[in-house]
């Protein structure tokens, strides 16, 4: 073992019997939370699918106006961030605190890159008059009113996903701040793992969003 490694473990809270029980409870709780998140997004996916069934033409027209390449790049960015997050988890298990911190910061940077690209995409949408809900701005697809349904759904899905990612980046930075203390891994190693689940899940949602909005409708 490397000299850089610090002890790793879980400080058992009073009402748990042992560290295993506590870790299991924490991971279990996070999975349940993720199930609720999945159903949260499923409502939005359902809208996208129903709109596609009702108005296939309108949906294609919208998909051709979405910024396909930004969407694809963003998917790749999130896949990279998943890798760095997995690496952070593995390093936390080994007790390699510095490497773990570096990976966490890399993950946060990739998340921020995603958000920046997303912001640029929104700006392009605005410039290209893809914002039907701004009354003061003419809408480029105004000929087919049903196109608005998918555009609106697109903004809500990506907005909600962006919100989740923003939360993820903030929590990750907070966690990194706490984890800079050498004693962190001795007491709270499982927090990195539990947070990692959340991060991968945001990635998973985007992996579904990309085909549902950008790809399948083209």
């Amino acid at each position, binding site marked *: *073992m*490397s000299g850089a490694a610090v002890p790793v473990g879980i400080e058992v809270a009073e009402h748990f019997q042992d560290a295993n029980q506590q870790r*299991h409870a924490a*991971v*279990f709780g996070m*999975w*349940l939370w*993720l*199930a*609720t998140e*999945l*159903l949260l997004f*499923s*409502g939005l*996916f*359902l809208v996208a*699918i*129903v709109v596609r*069934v*009702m108005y296939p033409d309108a949906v294609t027209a919208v998909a051709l106006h979405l910024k*396909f390449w930004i969407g*694809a790049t963003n*998917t*790749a960015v999130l*896949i*990279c961030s*998943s*890798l760095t997050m*997995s*690496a952070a988890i*593995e*390093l936390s*298990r*080994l007790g390699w605190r510095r490497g773990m911190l570096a990976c966490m910061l890399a993950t946060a940077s990739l998340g921020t890159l995603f958000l920046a690209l997303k912001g640029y995409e929104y700006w392009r949408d605005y410039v290209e008059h893809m914002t039907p809900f701004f009354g003061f701005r003419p809408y480029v697809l105004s000929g087919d009113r049903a196109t608005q349904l998918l555009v609106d759904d697109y903004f809500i899905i990506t907005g909600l996903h962006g919100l989740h990612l923003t939360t993820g980046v903030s929590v990750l930075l907070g966690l990194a701040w706490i984890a800079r203390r050498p004693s962190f891994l001795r007491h709270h190693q499982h927090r990195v793992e539990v947070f*990692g*689940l959340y991060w*991968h*899940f945001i*990635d*998973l949602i985007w*992996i*579904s969003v*990309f*085909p*549902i909005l*950008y*790809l*399948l409708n*083209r």
Partner: protein
Amino acid sequence: MTHEDWRTIRHRLRSPVLCFVALLLLLGVNVLLGVYAPFRWRNIWMIEAGIAVAMVLIVLVFSMELVREPPVIRLFAGVGFYWLVILFSLTLLDYLTR
């Protein structure tokens, strides 16, 4: 970093890197299908959706380490998706038979 450290880390990161490569490859195929659509087939979306499902499964099983978790957690991970299927299928039952 000793030699042994490198071996440990290579061993530990094998699975995440494999996931990463697989995900990027699948994404590449999907992007190609989306941009060039090599053959004009109306139902090409089925292939694209299939690839997306494969990507989701990779993230679930390997990145999120479902493969290492006890059965009860795998069950609840599946339950979320199963409920999603209920919501979609019964709603579409209405829309597809109207």
